[in-house]
């Protein structure tokens, strides 16, 4: 598949902000950030040093966006394959370089080139269809909440799981994995919120706060995803939102 060079150039121009330019220039390539990275700590390969993630991006810039499939493939391997954007490296870098910000810029290049990794693309498509990245239907979600609440009430008879309660203090959101595959996690969350007497509500819309668009480098979808949570919070008039892990 030929790469859409025009789209890459457009994203590249948009992403070359003040921090990106500064950080790519001052990085000393001293390797101190490696001490912070869990990839490097569990397998000390030179390619696992955080600063290594900047190489494909610098190459894209050096070529002025004239990328080919080969470079995009390498960029994907390095910037999707070996970074979780956890930011630990930033704490170890003497300049405090935000490697995660640069990795995300690199991922935006991949998105523009049409190279979003399949798993992430699928999650995003699920979101477009169902409002959550695992494609759970609304009824399935509501039923799972009901079911876990009933289980919980066997232990805490007064337990509640208010749905769409306007004016609550806290709106809680989830990782859809916890609802679909590990409902016992939902049970534990509800138990904690009830036990500490929090004035909380669940929401029937915008309950998935994992932002795959933020992770994949797709700005449009990232905005939609956080937009859904914000819209739910505004609709319910809550004071704060508890986001998922």
């Amino acid at each position, binding site marked *: 598949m030929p790469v859409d060079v025009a789209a890459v150039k457009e994203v590249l121009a948009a992403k070359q902000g003040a921090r990106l*330019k500064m950080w790519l220039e001052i990085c000393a*390539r001293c390797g*101190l950030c490696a001490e912070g990275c869990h990839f490097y700590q569990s397998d000390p390969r030179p390619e696992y040093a955080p600063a290594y993630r900047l190489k494909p991006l610098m190459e894209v810039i050096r070529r002025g966006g004239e990328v080919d499939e080969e470079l995009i493939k390498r960029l994907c391997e390095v910037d999707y394959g070996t970074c979780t954007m956890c930011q630990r490296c930033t704490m*170890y870098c003497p300049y405090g370089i935000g490697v995660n910000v640069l990795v995300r810029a690199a991922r935006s290049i991949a998105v523009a080139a049409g190279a979003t990794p399949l798993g992430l693309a699928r999650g995003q498509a699920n979101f477009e269809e169902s409002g959550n990245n695992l494609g759970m239907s609304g009824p399935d979600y509501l039923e799972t909440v009901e079911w876990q609440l009933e289980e919980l009430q066997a232990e805490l008879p007064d337990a509640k799981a208010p749905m769409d309660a306007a004016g609550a203090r806290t709106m809680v959101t989830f990782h859809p994995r916890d609802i679909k595959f590990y409902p016992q996690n939902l049970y534990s969350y509800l138990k904690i919120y009830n036990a500490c007497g929090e004035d909380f509500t669940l929401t029937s819309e915008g309950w998935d706060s994992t932002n795959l668009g933020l992770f994949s480098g797709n700005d449009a979808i990232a905005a939609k995803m956080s937009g859904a949570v914000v819209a739910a919070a505004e609709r319910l008039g809550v004071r704060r939102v508890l986001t998922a892990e």
Partner: protein
Amino acid sequence: MDALYTLATGPLLMFSFAVFALGAAARVALFVRLARRKDLPVLQGFQPHWAARSILHWLIPANVTAKASPFVTGFGFLFHISFLACAVFCQAHVVLIDAAWSLSWWTLPDQAADLLAQAFLAAAAFFAARRLLIPVVRTLTTPADWLVLAIAVAPMLTGLLAARQIGDYNLMITLHALAGNLLLLAIPFTKLSHMILFFVSRAVTGSDFGKRQVGAW
């Protein structure tokens, strides 16, 4: 040779110094200007208190890397402190500045400058060895890193050789003045711009840490 030396300590030096000073200021101004257009949250999120804490934690070795990488930190401080001390306080320099602008200040005794210059060269050798021997650093290193290290080492090495009268003094002192000019000219345009942008970058990241209340690290 004499003409070259006169040039390198006269008009060229004025030029280099102006490029250095204006370039340094411009780097900060350009950062702010670009941030206004493309990185607005960086300006909106600026928190002076957290920025200052972050800068301070890394200007003194009170950070996680000082513990995780004590040797690099130690040699890093030696490298920078000896460099700045020699550049600002060595007698020859203060005499030159006094002659040009009738400004003068406390100077290092020659022996101390000598010792600091040697300490600097040792630290530079340590950084060069890391780049050659440690696989992570070797993989990251680009030719530009060697060039910058050479640009940083040249004035110290030639200054020390001139002061010790090793080799042809006239040649050495001319090379030294040229190397000093080259360094001043390189600061705004290479990764040596970290001399200024270190403070900007730590301010940005410190403010971000402040937003999350996670400490200065």
